[in-house]
């Protein structure tokens, strides 16, 4: 789906727990998520730490939308 969104000019940050797979399938902006059932956080952490982790992941996603890339690229949360 991300390929089709990008094809139509919409930069798309894919938050995925399997970044190499997303990259292999042609997703151009891949952000490293946590685990398949919870890519945007870690429910085993305390709520504040979980939210801080989520903030880092989403910031990485936002940053990837502003970055020029020429090929499928993995962006790591800071």
């Amino acid at each position, binding site marked *: 789906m991300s390929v089709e969104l990008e094809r139509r000019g*919409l930069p798309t940050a894919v938050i995925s727990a399997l970044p190499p797979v997303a990259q292999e399938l042609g997703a151009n902006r891949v952000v490293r998520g946590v685990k398949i059932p919870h890519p945007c956080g870690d429910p085993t952490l305390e709520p504040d730490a979980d939210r801080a982790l989520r903030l880092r992941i989403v910031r990485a996603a936002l940053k990837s939308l502003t970055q020029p890339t020429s090929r499928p690229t993995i962006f790591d949360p800071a």
Partner: protein
Amino acid sequence: MRIVHFLNQFYGRLGGEEAADTPVRVVDAPVGPGTRLQELLGQRADIVATIVCGDNVAAEEPSTFRDAVQRILQERLADVFVAGPAFNAGRYGLACGAACCVAAELGVPSVTALYPENPAASLYRRELVIVPTTATASGMQAALTRLADLAVRLGNGDALGPPWVYGYLPHGFRRVELREKTAADRALDMLAARLRGEPFQTEVPLPDVARVDPAPPIADLSTATLAVVTTSALVPKGNPDKLRQSYSTEWRSYSIAGLERLEPGAWESMHGGFDTSAANADPHQVVPLDVLRLLEGATFGRLHDRYFVTAGVGTAVSAAQRMGAEIAAELLSSGAQGVILTAT
């Protein structure tokens, strides 16, 4: 071995678009690229006839075209039928495919050559032997060499081996065969070859997904409208629109306008492919609305009023492509400039 060859009006030396209405005609000799094909065939086979037909006639009068091809193949006692190469020519490619199907109905083996993205290639690749070519005639020599070898092989009634050995487009199925080594041994051999940096041939090729050039980045994030798309199947509790749990062919969209958070109990994941307890206990694990609201108006402009959702389980690539295209159309018409897609 008797070969009948098919060409369109251009390669048949009748002319370009102005000759595209030329009806089917036969020449009892190689023509155009057929001359080189005959050289490559050498003593192995003879091109006894060349069928030439205008692109428009083949496309607009399919039954006339088919009948003529059938009659000629029978009259000339063809052992093998060769069509093209048609490269990336649309009407020509379709004519090659249709003509090869006529040969198949007569029990005459056939082979054609097309650019893999020629629409005829996707239409006929499962049933016909198609040699992949370049988009333009620059790859003529390579295509004719492959065509000659495959035509002789087919004419001799020899079985075709795997596509990566014989150089035709994969038919998309696997043939059962006995191998000396077990699957475990073969897998380890491949792994060892890969570690040594040597070439190896996978037995389970991944689907070939078309690459696209990355979309240009957002120049000014602070004014951009962003949307969330998710394959996590997060829907309002009770799944009011009956989103399927797996093998998705459809997506839904739900309003998040004015919502600061996704409350547990109000939303649930219908995803049939992972343990949804974490997502149900805190939907932000799959749709990070809480932190997006925090960053909205500061780091980026605003969040789209709706999010878009499907269940990414066993979804066919073609269905995913269609859904992606449909969601993109929706987003573009409502002013979105970028997407955060959470994949589970």
